[in-house]
């Protein structure tokens, strides 16, 4: 049971060793994919949380709620305006997580949100502005 989440830290909670607690108390394997933490302000962490069961993962997410850390599943953070998309494939060259690929038979763009690590490469690469990503908020 693994998923990618953006964790939103506030100035008060950022001092807590959240990742250590996730690992020790909730038995979660944490993989940090990206971090944006500004001292004294707020931070955003893109992490992959891997648990043995959905129940364990949910327990960890519930705990994050109680200490005021917001979490959002990354798969929901990337939006792709398929109507606007012309299937040029320009984005596929910068998507190193493999979330965006071009089907070399139909030459249609294929998006696998589960693989997205919210790097934002596609947002900049798309000439039609089809991708939006809200990392944090």
């Amino acid at each position: 049971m693994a998923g990618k989440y953006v964790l939103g830290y506030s100035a008060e909670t950022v001092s807590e060793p959240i990742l250590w607690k996730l690992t020790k108390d909730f038995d979660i394997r944490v993989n940090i994919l990206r971090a944006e933490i500004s001292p004294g302000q707020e931070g955003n962490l893109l992490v992959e949380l891997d648990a043995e069961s959905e129940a364990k993962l949910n327990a960890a997410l519930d705990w994050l709620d109680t200490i005021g850390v917001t979490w959002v599943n990354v798969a929901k953070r990337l939006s792709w305006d398929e109507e606007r998309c012309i299937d040029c494939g320009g984005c596929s060259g910068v998507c190193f997580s493999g979330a965006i690929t071009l089907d070399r038979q139909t030459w249609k763009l294929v998006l696998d949100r589960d693989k997205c690590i919210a790097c934002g490469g596609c947002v900049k690469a798309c000439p039609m502005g089809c991708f939006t990503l809200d990392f944090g908020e």
Partner: protein
Amino acid sequence: MGEIKKSWEEINQRLASGKAVVLTAEETAELAKTESPEEVAKKVDVVTTGTFGAMCSSGMFINFGHPEPPIRMEHITLDGVPVFGGVAAVDAYIGASETHPDDGRFGGAHIIEKLIRGEEVYLEAHAKGTDCYPRKDIATYIHKDRVNEMILTNPRNAYQNYPAATNSTHRTLYTYMGTLLPSFMNVNYSTSGCLSPLLNDPYLRTIGIGSPVFLGGAIGSVAWNGTQFNTEKPVNDRGIPLSNARTLMLVGNAKEMSADWIRAGYYEKYGVTMYVGVGFAIPVLDEDMAYRVMIRNEDIETSLCDYGVEGHPTLARVNYRDLMSGSIEFRGKRIRTAPLSSYRRARLLAEQLKQLVLQGKFPLTAPVRPLPEHSRVQGLSIIRDRRA
């Protein structure tokens, strides 16, 4: 070679009688696996091509009509985007790559797309006022049904081949060739391979001044050679130039065009551009033309250029079979490749053009005059003092 000869008239007669065989360039390339040019020349009458890619050197003439009292418009903007008004009183040229002064992501191409879509666009213009054109200011909304002409006039389209781009430096480059990641992490290319119009007729035997062209969903014309028209680039053994060579100046009635085939785009930290759908129907006049239209992706080569170095030096020669596979081998490692023009749309365009040809809706006519046989491109010298 030289046994089989079909004239434009004969091909048109075959089309009229419903006997003509029309294939897309991709289908013809597939035939090339098993058939000879002679067989293809016998079997196939017309081959349709297509591309849908970014063509910055595009724009549109527009005639707004005269208001009462009239104005000799200067300093014209459309939805805030400056357009060129130095052409008489109420004519203007909307350059596709012109940008809004406060929003670099919005520009002329967006205005052209909006007008084609039938959206209202805000026109503002000022003038000094003359005896014959007394009005000094105007602000109104325009719409494609309320302006006189909208003539797409693109100075340089349908580049014959284009180099593929990569980046040797240690920082990401944002270019008109898309996002180029550091240290040769990716390669971008933009030509539609075997479907690309000018790669199916590399010496322009059938394309010249007056040739009908599928342009933005309408039937336009080749007006002239495009700017930077270059016949002197080195070619491979199939006669394909190894980098950007010939170009076309295309015109057409934008009121008949569709936003399926004219789309505004924006390249990060580069600017606004316009995606233009262009296609030609090429008659298979003889074995030589058959040989040309049978070109396959592996036969089309281009230069891999380093956009991280001034002058974009060529690093390698690559072919489109490899570029289109998703990765190429370069200096002992695999680099991923990505297109910038839509191969899916190019394929759709060629298919749509094939249907138009079969239905007799797309004219097959020989050029009125050929494009230059020899032409080369020069750079811009910096000259401090005016030459005598």
